[in-house]
């Protein structure tokens, strides 16, 4: 990734001193753009970086600079934020052809330059082929994973270089801010946001317009805070927005500040996201240098300064009052909210806290109007939502879909279905405080929206969506989330602190084969107590993973407790593997894969597992092409 110091905002560009000046500046930038210039877009989101995309960028630059171009335009290498299609990374898109290359390694770079760039020749092995298909799809925009999404919030991601503000400005960044500063009163801004029916994207779904209105009514210093403490395991929407399009979030915050009458903003970012912190820091500096943030924005007399504060690894700090305590340098313990933080929050002053994705929606709502936004989604859940689709599904990554879309469409239409010939067992939404929705067996399908998810015992949450196949043990999943919450509970109120520990104790016992009659009833009782009597949002939803699995997967609890069996083959004391003689072809793959040499058998004859040696590591089960390894 480009270092912040390399930022190319040229020093000779003077501050933009009027909203009209922004327009002139954008037109100037636009006139310099050549839509036919060759461009190599390399995804540098965390997923692609983990797979080696930074090295790919460096190699491209090295190879391109080593060629004599003889007057031809040298292709520009553009590292961008997360494109979302993480399971195929590192991704390279070649413009203007919109050619999509996947899983590009350093060794492919010379080939791409020599064949594709210089000779217009497509490299077939790097092209995308959907699962179970032999046909390649050459263009990025034709790939169903992208084509079936509605990208409003993510529209710039993968298109702009997040380290270069001009790249965002040319695509319209800060024009909504210019509009509110010149043509709208704070009340009109709040009305427009309220009209859009946008609800908080952090999880609770509180109407954003209403929150802004309550904050604007208060007296004295007001703060605008962005919650970027994305702690849900398995969720990375906010990280991708901050890393891929930081200016949309900053612009949203500035518009909010104008509407509620604030001139100080804070961004609370999770410290586990170093790249996001670096990108944001550079983005703020560039916006201030151009006069788009800071003092006297665009010469209008409106001031708004944003400061970044990093979290220190506490899930509870995603809760509003805990986050504000942490911003003050204290431990993040939530307080009772008889008085809401819009009245008394950070430094005991009125504070408007919204999530990253909520702010990122604002500029488009201002530009296109609340009616436009409402045309997406449903009556009660308007607009789109970004989900992090992970788990046992082909296409892992970020997806943005209109609210109200069918969950089956997300899993099969966009996600490409379940790999390894397994079947779908359920989808977990809402992070550790969410629930498992048992599609397609117990509930055929569900339309994703705040209300519908709640009816199914889950929550929208911030947007984690974990697909689970038949090999997932629901009791183990509940144990995993409860264990996570035990670690993350702040410990000040008894129902949450003690309730979680007791639930973990019982779930541990069940998964180890020591469950007894009455355990499920006890879990249910403790769970309801925890949810009803805890102090904060974390505590009052802490038992959801337990309660929702009891509701939909009671048979699995019974199998563990009464039959001492784990049907999914996850809880080690409760199952063993056996090879089915009728279907085993004796191919020997399991024997080679077994790390403890527990499998014996001659070629083309049925193989046998020595139970005394088997460590139940799943290798044979996972690798058998004939599904002859059975869970017993």
């Amino acid at each position, binding site marked *: 990734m480009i270092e912040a110091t390399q930022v190319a905002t040229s020093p000779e560009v003077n501050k933009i001193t009027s909203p009209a000046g922004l327009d002139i500046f954008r037109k100037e930038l636009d006139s310099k753009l050549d839509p036919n210039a060759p461009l190599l877009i390399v995804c540098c989101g965390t*997923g692609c970086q983990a*797979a080696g995309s930074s090295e790919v960028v460096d190699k491209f630059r090295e190879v391109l600079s080593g060629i004599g171009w003889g007057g031809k335009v040298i292709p520009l290498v553009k590292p961008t934020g997360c494109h979302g299609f993480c399971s195929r*990374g590192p991704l390279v898109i070649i413009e203007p052809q919109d050619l999509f290359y996947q899983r590009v390694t350093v060794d492919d770079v010379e080939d791409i330059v020599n064949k594709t760039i210089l000779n217009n020749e497509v490299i077939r092995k790097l092209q995308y082929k959907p699962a179970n298909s032999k046909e390649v799809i050459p263009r990025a925009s034709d790939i169903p994973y992208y084509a079936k999404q509605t990208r409003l919030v993510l529209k710039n991601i993968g298109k702009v270089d997040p380290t270069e503000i001009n790249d965002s400005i040319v695509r319209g960044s800060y024009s909504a801010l210019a509009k509110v500063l010149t043509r709208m009163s704070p009340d009109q801004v709040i009305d427009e946001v309220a009209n859009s029916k946008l609800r908080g994207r952090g999880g609770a779904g509180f109407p954003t317009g209403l929150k802004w209105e309550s904050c604007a009514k208060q007296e004295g210093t007001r703060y605008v805070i962005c919650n970027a403490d994305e*702690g849900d395991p*398995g969720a990375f929407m906010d990280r991708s927005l901050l890393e891929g399009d930081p200016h949309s979030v900053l612009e949203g915050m500035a518009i909010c500040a104008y509407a509620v009458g604030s001139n100080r903003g804070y961004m609370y970012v999770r410290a586990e996201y170093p790249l996001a912190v670096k990108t944001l820091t550079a983005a703020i500096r560039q916006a201030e240098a151009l006069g788009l943030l800071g003092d006297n924005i665009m010469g209008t007399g409106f001031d708004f300064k944003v400061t970044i504060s990093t979290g*220190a690894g506490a899930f509870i700090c995603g809760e509003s009052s805990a986050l504000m305590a942490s*911003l003050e340098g204290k431990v993040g313990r939530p307080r009772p909210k008889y008085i809401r933080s819009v009245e008394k929050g950070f430094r005991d002053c009125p504070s408007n806290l919204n999530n990253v994705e909520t702010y990122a929606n604002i500029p488009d709502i201002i530009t296109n109007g609340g009616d436009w936004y409402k045309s997406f989604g449903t009556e009660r859940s308007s607009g789109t939502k970004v989900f992090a689709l*992970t788990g*046992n599904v082909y296409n892992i990554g970020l997806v943005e879909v209109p609210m109200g879309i069918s969950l089956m469409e997300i899993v099969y239409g966009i996600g490409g279905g379940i790999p390894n010939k397994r079947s779908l067992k359920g989808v977990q939404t809402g992070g550790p405080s969410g629930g498992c929705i048992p599609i397609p067996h117990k509930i055929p399908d569900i339309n994703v929206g705040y209300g519908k998810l709640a009816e199914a015992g889950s929550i929208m949450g911030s947007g984690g969506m974990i697909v689970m196949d038949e090999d997932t043990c629901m009791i183990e999943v509940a144990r995993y989330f409860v264990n996570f919450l035990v670690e993350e509970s702040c410990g000040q109120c008894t129902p949450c602190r003690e309730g979680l520990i007791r639930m973990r104790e019982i779930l541990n016992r069940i998964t180890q084969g020591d469950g007894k009659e009455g355990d499920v009833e006890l879990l249910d009782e403790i769970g309801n107590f925890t949810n009803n009597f805890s102090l904060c949002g974390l505590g009052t939803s802490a038992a959801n993973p337990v309660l929702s699995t009891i509701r939909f997967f009671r048979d699995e609890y019974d199998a563990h407790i009464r039959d001492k069996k784990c049907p999914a083959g996850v809880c080690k004391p409760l199952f063993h593997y056996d090879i089915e003689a009728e279907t085993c072809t004796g191919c020997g793959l399991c024997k080679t894969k077994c790390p403890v040499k527990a499998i014996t058998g001659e070629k083309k004859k049925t193989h046998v597992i020595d139970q005394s040696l088997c460590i139940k590591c799943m290798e044979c089960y996972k690798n058998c092409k004939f599904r002859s390894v059975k869970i017993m």
Partner: protein
Amino acid sequence: MSGTACQCQEIECAEVEIDYTLLDKIIRDDYGGNREAMIMMMQAIQRVYRFLPEAAVKYLSQVIEVPLTKIYEVATFYASFSLEPKGKYILSVCTGTACHLRGSGGMVEHISKRMGIAPGKTTADMKLTLETVNCVGACAVAPVVVVDEKYYPKADIATLNDFMDRLDAE
């Protein structure tokens, strides 16, 4: 307050030399001695020493006039702070949901067993600290292991064994 004492007496631990000019730079210059920035200051100190040395924490307490008990409370509340010295390498296994479903729990167990340390602890020779992290957001390449900011995508027992073999050979 015995908890703030360096808990590594049994393992050989070189006295950490504190550079007070550097601490001043962090506390006074970078953050203007502002108490609200205490967490950020502690993070900056930890970046220098890889843990929070007792002497540095005491100095911070004096300069910003926050009782040591308050700093101790913060240091033990947030998962990213450590009052114990870290090993030469820090190996973090992601235990986020996607990684968990793909077996990261077994990997933690494996390293624990082979190196003889519980998660959060450091080997006696100060070479390796084993940590778990709740999610690094690289779910597509789960399970992920991070060694000193380098990501190992789709890690398995073999990747870990390779790493530990190299460590043993050092």
